Every structure is written in C-alpha cells, then in structure tokens.
C-alpha cells in the first residue's frame, strides 16, 4: 500500500525569537502566522494489491 500526500503538510514555523532581536519578535510572529494555515486537506491511498471485501 502506498500513501501519497497530494496537498502540502502543515508548514512548521520557527520560533519567533530564533535569529531575531527581542524587539522584533512580535512583528516576526505576525508576519509568519498566515503560513501555518496551509494544511494537509487531501491524502490519497492506493489500495491496489490489497485483498478483502470492498
């Protein structure tokens, strides 16, 4: 059985404070937040070769 992801998985977002000055954390988080909305909505599985009743 093979599993094929046909839509992008959730995008991991780096901690806002990493590689940034403390004062820039809030702005970085605000800019990054739309990126985490791209979630896995569709996942396809090929069941060729499986035995059973369907």
């Amino acid at each position, binding site marked *: 059985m093979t599993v094929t992801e046909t839509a992008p998985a959730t995008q991991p977002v780096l901690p806002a404070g990493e590689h940034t000055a403390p004062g820039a954390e809030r702005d970085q988080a605000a800019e990054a937040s739309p990126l985490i*909305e791209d979630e896995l909505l569709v996942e396809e599985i090929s069941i060729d070769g499986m035995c059973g009743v369907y």
Partner: protein
Amino acid sequence: MGCAASTEPGFDPARPYELHPDVALRPEPFGALAYHYGNRRLTFLRSPELVQLVTELGDHESVAASMAALGVATERRPALERALASLAKSEVVRPRSDGAVRAG
C-alpha cells in the same frame, strides 16, 4: 509523491464541477473517505469544510460560486482550491461539461 503546492494545470475554479458519479463519500470524524469505484483510489478528505464543498459543487455554476454560497473565508480559498485541484486530478471531482446546475 507529487506536490500540489500550486493549482493543478487544467483546474479552473471559474468552471462548474461536480462529485464524480463513480465516487462514494463516507462521512468520518475528520471529514470523509472518498472511494472511486473506477480507479480504486481511496482519498482522505481531511476537512469537513472541504467535504461540504465537494458535495455541493454540483449545485453551483462554478467552484468560486460554491465557495461563496458556503461562506468560505477569502483566506481559506487558495488552500481549498489546491485541494480541489488534486481531487480533480484523482477524478474525485470532475468538470461539468454542460455547465448545468444539479436539479433538486
């Protein structure tokens, strides 16, 4: 493993689509399972919003009109369009050639 980061070529949200007649949808807590009796592909639809959209595509003149009728937020539409594009590629949904709205 394919990448559906962009909309599949040929998928046009301005066109009318419908659930493929060879596909059975089974409601699940996460959304639905779609089984295609022709190509024997099993597809997980992992969003109730996407399931509702897929089931109601045939009631509207276009994908965009379906989203508008369901009140899909503007920022959610690109992700749903990418999902529908991959569903069209898998023949879970198909374009309606006549453009007619489903009766009933």
